[in-house]
């Protein structure tokens, strides 16, 4: 799951970068950026961090 979280993080980063070449509309680019940041945050907070919390030292 940690690897999934890392991959989601990277995907969320690359999505807006690639999106720059798909549209020239400022509004569309802004939407893709916010979507990408959301995916990245989901990857870090909901996937990666949760995987770490499962084996947290205070649970042992």
């Amino acid at each position, binding site marked *: 799951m940690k690897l999934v979280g890392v991959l989601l*993080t990277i995907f*969320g980063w690359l999505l807006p970068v690639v999106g720059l070449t798909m549209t020239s509309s*400022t509004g569309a680019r802004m939407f893709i950026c916010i979507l990408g940041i959301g995916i990245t945050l989901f990857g870090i907070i909901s996937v990666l961090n949760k995987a770490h919390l499962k084996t947290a030292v205070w649970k042992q």
Partner: protein
Amino acid sequence: MTRCTWMKPCLWAAVVALLVSGLPAGAQGQTSAASAPAAAAPAPPPPAPAMDAPLDIKAAQPPSTDDLAAKGDAGGTSTGTVSDVVAADTKKGLTLADVVNQAGQNRIAINFVWTLVTGFLVMFMQAGFAIVETGLCRAKNANHTMMMNFMVYGFGLFAFWVCGFAIQMGGGAPYSTLGGIYPLNSEHVINVLGKPWGLFGTHGFFLSGASYDVGAMVLFLFQMVFMDTALTIVTGACAERWKYVAFAISSVFMGAITYPLFANWAWGGGWLSQLGANFSLGHGYCDFAGSGVVHAVGGITALALSMIIGPRIGKYNRDGSSNAMPGHDIVIVLTGCFILAFGWFGFNPGSTLAASGNGALRIGSIAVNTMLAGCTGSFGAILYMWIRYGKPDASMSGNGLLAGLVAITAPSGFVSTVGAAIIGLVAGALVCVSVEFVDRVLRVDDPVGAISVHGTNGIWGVISVGLFADGTSNYGGSWNGVNGSVRGLFYGDASQLVAQLIGVGTLIGGIFALSYISGWIMDLIIGQRVSAADELEGLDIPEMGALCYPEFVLKHYSPGTAAAAD
């Protein structure tokens, strides 16, 4: 003779006189018209003095050296004259070329001195970070925490000298305010999807070869102290349970690779800075002094490593609730905050890399913006804590000041004082909310609040450029190769905000991933965290071999209890 008799001849005489007077006028007009080209033609300009012709110095009336020797110059009106301009050829004497060259060198010299002195101020911030972090940690770890902040200077500097500076700035020439620094002109660029993407520089390793250059030295010093600020942020978040050897290797890696990569993309001519030129996104990613490049990189790396290392023993209970672990010395925390606020006068105004030409006189505005944001940052934090918890919390007030300073770092060169005050106020409240979120929701232990101060507010600073940049700055007529002044959403350019958001995505996506993967590998190979026994004893003896306070009996910390047990 009757009236009619003499009036007729008079009238005729008047008519004749009018006709005759018109002729000369007409003739003059014609003459004027004929002579107009000659009168209107501008006088030929005097011949320009030859650049290499000797000038008549005596005409400038330099003071006599005998007079100066006898009387001195109490008023300062006779010191610094034509006699002080150096002639390239003393036999020929002073020429116009000498004077023009001196003017150019004076401009660059002013910029060199400015950049170096502000760099010295930023270097002193290391002391501020050291005592802030140490004061917020427990006394049994004080030696270890101080030593991390002390040696991060050396580890980071060495890594940056070996390869970090080359990766970051090796391809960004010309740096016009510092004389060009033309040897730093090699950027590794790939062409993808029809556009050039600058990735990293390739000149300047070990500052050798052609990069053994006076301008390169100035730029290196200034960029190095910024790099070290990013590195030292991580030590605070990972304090009290980080192995010293793991810290050392992490710092070298961050100074050599992680920080310089993003800094190249933002400041070294890399792809983020070229979003404006390549994709018509405002002026590309704009980060005047480093909310993103320095603070967010540090804060996000701190988040990644804190997740890998895990929280301190006793920080969280089995049900997930957190326990406060207060620091041991508020005095040095707040003193450290003042040192940082002082050093920030080098951080932001110094980022013009100039005090002469190219809009550099905006340094006063930048300094005032910096002060204001720090001030309102502390207001935002103290008000939040006072209202929510009934007391003005000292450590959060200090973090609020720092949050405001972090947030204004990126927009400081582009916004008005009103914008700066708003940015700081939001930052002060945001840092308090973020600390609670990181602590209680993410359950990531951060002893000093570095993730919230630098990560969260670094990102807020990056976004605020895209909102509050007001279009009044003018640093040589362009920024990142795009003509005109940087302007945010509130001043008519939404595309600038898009460029900033791509920078945010790169920080929390690309830099986080790189830091996490490198930290994960290091954890597998050498282990990042100390043993539980060492952690409970305190890292000073097991890791450093000496207590920070050997003459004091340190109280035993019992999680969840108000009183200390002996």
